[in-house]
């Protein structure tokens, strides 16, 4: 009996410790327990603020003129970025714009999405910002339409989600994300700059969730394969699209016999993902390592070991967001005194998150026309990304999107410039251009 009690006590303290750690970044300001939304919920389901509330092109209003909207945030991963985003939403956006956020746990399947949406409906949520890009989008929009819940998702307009655009759904606010071709271009350029004459160093790509339909990851992987094809004049035995979508590790056969290895998945899709990646690296066959998702935290150790063991300099490029992990990685020296990361295509978490919020908020406040293209279909907003390739650049970037100091790249002014309530004569085209104008130079200028 005593032993059991002791065991229980130990496990309890461990659990508490872990959750406290995990919760460390975000303060609990945003979670007001027990707020009822019965009054609003009784009216059936989340309602879009009736267009009649705001005059379509009427006077500017303030967020306080509206009811307190409730927005659900659906996350498909659980990493630095999601923690940062939560902080941004709860501590920066929520108080300023009179909104409340509800966060999901890691959503891994269509059923998880359904559960979260149903729970949101029960809580009287008005709209969903989803960070899960998958073919299920077509189904999910139908569900949201039925519950009269706004739906906005972080993806690009690909054939996979085409139905959501053409189905005439009222609650579909549109999508936003980075044209994967931009990322893959950056990867291409970078490979061209570091690759050798004969490609003998070998190339490894972690394709992350490409096999599940994540367009960003798929395009990154495709970009790498296309770049290699260009540089070395390769012929593959299958189409680049198919190769990139492989669900099992694949040594890509090519006519020049170069070592090209595609390794799918992330540490959350399988328990021994990290081991598999390490094993592949430890063969020493790959001198260039590209990662389509921010998995460098898990592979960093393996890379370092291989560099020491084989006395070779592995060049690493990742597609990531600005975060503490990224900064640390860039500032860590490898055996040769270089940065352990050589290039990162980064998105700003605040930029990405703000765009999602803006999309839903405009719709809620009666400015849904900002989310519609000329032909009436939901819009796609492209978000620029930036390629950082030096320690100095990254350290500078680290000062941006900082939660403690509240120095967000996409701050209140930046947001207001995109809101209908602050700029009644904004149009969809102007908004698109606005986002495009946020380049690295813009950021450097605004953040100093």
């Amino acid at each position, binding site marked *: 009996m005593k032993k059991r009690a002791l065991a229980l006590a130990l496990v309890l303290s461990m659990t508490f410790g872990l959750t406290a750690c995990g919760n460390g970044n975000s303060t609990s300001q945003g979670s007001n327990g027990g707020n*009822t939304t*019965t009054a609003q919920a009784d009216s059936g389901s989340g309602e879009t603020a009736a267009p009649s509330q705001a005059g379509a092109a009427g006077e500017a209003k303030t967020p306080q003129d509206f009811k307190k909207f409730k927005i659900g945030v659906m996350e498909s991963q659980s990493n630095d970025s999601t923690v940062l985003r939560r902080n941004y939403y709860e501590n920066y956006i929520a108080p300023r714009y009179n909104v409340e956020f509800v966060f999901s746990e890691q959503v*891994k399947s269509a059923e998880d999405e359904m*559960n979260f949406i149903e729970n949101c409906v*029960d809580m009287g949520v008005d709209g969903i910002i989803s960070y899960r890009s998958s073919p299920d989008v077509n189904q999910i929009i139908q569900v949201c339409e039925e519950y009269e819940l706004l739906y906005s998702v972080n993806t690009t307009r690909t054939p996979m989600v085409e139905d959501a655009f053409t189905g005439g759904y009222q609650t579909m606010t549109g999508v936003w994300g980075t044209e994967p071709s931009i990322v893959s271009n950056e990867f291409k350029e970078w490979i061209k700059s570091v690759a050798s004459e004969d490609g003998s160093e070998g190339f490894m790509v972690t394709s992350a969730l490409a096999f599940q339909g994540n367009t960003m990851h798929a395009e990154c992987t495709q970009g790498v394969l296309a770049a290699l094809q260009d540089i070395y004049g390769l012929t593959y035995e299958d189409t680049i699209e198919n190769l990139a979508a492989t669900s099992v590790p694949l040594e890509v056969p090519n006519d020049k016999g170069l070592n090209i290895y595609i390794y799918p998945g992330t540490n959350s899709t399988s328990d021994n993902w990290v081991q598999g990646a390490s094993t592949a690296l430890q063969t020493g066959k790959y001198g260039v390592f590209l990662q389509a998702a921010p998995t460098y935290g898990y592979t960093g150790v393996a890379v370092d070991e291989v560099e020491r063991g084989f006395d070779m300099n592995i060049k690493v490029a990742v597609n990531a967001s600005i975060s503490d992990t990224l900064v640390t990685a860039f500032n860590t020296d490898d055996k040769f005194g270089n940065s352990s990361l050589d290039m990162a295509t980064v998105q700003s978490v605040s930029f990405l998150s703000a765009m999602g919020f803006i999309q839903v908020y405009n719709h809620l406040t009666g400015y849904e026309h900002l989310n519609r293209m000329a032909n009436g279909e939901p819009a796609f907003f492209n978000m620029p990304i930036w390629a950082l390739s030096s320690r100095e650049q990254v350290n500078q970037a680290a000062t941006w999107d900082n939660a403690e100091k509240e120095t967000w790249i996409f701050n209140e002014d930046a947001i207001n410039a995109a809101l209908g309530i602050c700029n009644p004569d904004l149009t969809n085209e102007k908004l698109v251009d606005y986002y495009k104008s946020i380049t690295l130079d813009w950021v450097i200028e605004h953040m100093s």
Partner: protein
Amino acid sequence: MENTKENKLPQGTRKLGVMDHIRIIRDKPMFPLIFPLTVLILIIAGFGIATEGGFFRKTVLMGVFNQALIIATVSTAMTFVFAAGNMDISVGSAMAFSAVAGVYAYNATGSVFFMVVVCLVIGVVLMSFNGFIHAMFGVRTIIISIVMMQLYSAIVSLILGPDTVSIDYGLCRQLENAGFRNISFILFFVFCMILFHSTSVGRKLKFVGGNARCAQQTGIQYKNTVLISFAVAGLGVGLSAVFSIIRTSTVGTTLGAGMGMDVMLAVVLGGMSIFGGSRSNAYAGLLGAVTVSALNKGLLMCDVSPMLIQGVRGIVFLILVFLNSERPATLPSAQD
């Protein structure tokens, strides 16, 4: 026959302490039902208070039930397998396989009936296969299921790739609104309860799980009994595949991932041991699944952060498992 009717406690026993009273209560026959049910009611009541009545709304409670359906179906069926002391974690992959087959069946014939039949048949075939290998070759069920899990999910990945397959969403909503899933589940649940508790099937399974050699000596054949349990499990898997299809109208490679563990958790929370034996019953799966679902929904509605939700969930599970696993101490073997 000499008369030694000493139905009172034998002379010299001391007064019962707290732990003894707890043990006596735990041995009462209705305990396995009352205790988890009480916990569930307490959890619902707790959330109801915390959300100031929000949790008690009909849509919310129905939602709890709905979200629990899939796990509840498989768990109810799996109590048959667990009762005999076996385990199977391939249920998730088997369900995915079954669902894929069902979707193709529907898209080929347009018949919901045909889809249901295909799902059920495939479910039964897959699970019975596991049971067959075990009965024939004596390989432990946990090993078989680990292997088959990989196999089934590899096949599903192969067929689907990165895509998903789907059927008409409108049809699914119709079926859902007509209460198809709810009614089917209730029918299946009643069937399982009758089969387990009112026929010899459940008793035989429990005996096999408690002491297989003793069961053999009372004429219970291990092979036949276990095969039946896997066939029932297959029915549950097939039915839950149908439910999955109807719920989201799509099937992807992520379907059923981790279900093996979810089922075990549900069964344990429902008050049954996953090692089977005399404390097994057919309702633990439903109780446990609904408890998990209520916890998830309730914690979210209370604005608890997702990371904290995991922690709280873990603690609640631990406590419940801890309470369920106490065994009465026995006298040393010198007694014999």
